[in-house]
């Protein structure tokens, strides 16, 4: 698997200064993107995948990516679909067109959350200051995605590289999440 497997979708927001940039770890705001929440039954899996352009992953906590596309397993009948910013309408019409009357739910949640990219040698350590998940590479390999809890905020973590994670939180929680991460990282630069 490539190091930054979803790099064409998850990119640092060029307009934003880094939230943190030290040797051991950096935290960057990710650029906006299209996010859709897709719910459907097993029978519609294939059709939805082909309409979206990448097969919907069925293994728990896994993700699948293709050119400018990512599909993240969120639950047994729930996927988050990532596509480039401002493509929501076309993606929606592709999928709706294909699924037609097959029972499903497709909801635009592009703006519900924000993402940051936490990367560097101490990235996993930093996440572990607030998240109880084993981020060792064997148990949380690249491509793994999971909702979880960071201190008192719900978050989603997607490992996009050996030492790189996307952390998403609902917008109103992001100050809390990124602020605490930056604060907890400060000891790394202690004398």
């Amino acid at each position, binding site marked *: 698997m490539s190091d930054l497997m979803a790099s064409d979708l998850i990119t640092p927001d060029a307009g934003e200064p880094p939230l943190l940039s030290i040797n051991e770890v950096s935290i960057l705001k990710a650029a906006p993107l299209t996010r859709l929440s897709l719910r459907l039954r097993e029978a519609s899996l294939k059709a939805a995948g082909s309409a979206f352009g990448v097969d919907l992953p069925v293994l*728990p*906590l896994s993700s699948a990516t293709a050119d400018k596309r990512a599909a993240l397993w*969120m*639950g*047994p009948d*729930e996927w988050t679909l990532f596509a480039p910013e401002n493509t929501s309408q076309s993606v929606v019409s592709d999928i709706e067109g294909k699924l037609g009357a097959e029972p499903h739910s497709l909801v635009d949640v592009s703006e519900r959350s924000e993402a940051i990219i936490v990367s560097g040698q101490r990235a996993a350590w930093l996440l572990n200051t607030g998240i*109880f*998940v084993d981020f060792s590479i064997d148990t949380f390999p690249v491509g793994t995605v*999971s*909702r*979880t*809890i960071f201190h008192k905020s*719900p978050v989603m973590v997607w490992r996009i590289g050996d030492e790189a994670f996307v952390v998403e939180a609902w917008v109103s929680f992001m100050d809390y999440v990124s602020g605490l991460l930056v604060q907890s990282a400060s000891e790394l630069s202690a004398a």
Partner: protein
Amino acid sequence: MLLVYCPYCKVERAETEFSCRGEAHIARPSDPSQTSDEDWVHYLYMRSNTKGIYAERWRHIHGCGRFFNAVRDTVSDNFLKFYKAGEPMPDLEALAKEAGK
């Protein structure tokens, strides 16, 4: 903090990702209008509150969002089984025996 296994995500996670929703297998009467006050109060409020092997509902609220059931020993807090919502209640006595209780 308990460690809870989600049968949908197939991972063990910290209890804080989950919410516990009380006794399992308390079905909502299928025809409430034909249900007596006595039966309705049993559905609403009466609970086994077992000391020992107990089937209870959990939800992976900060994960996949699914409800599922678990059998737990309420004395040791050890889980004996996790199973998906909709699956029948396992034989608690057999589970207890298996666990050497």
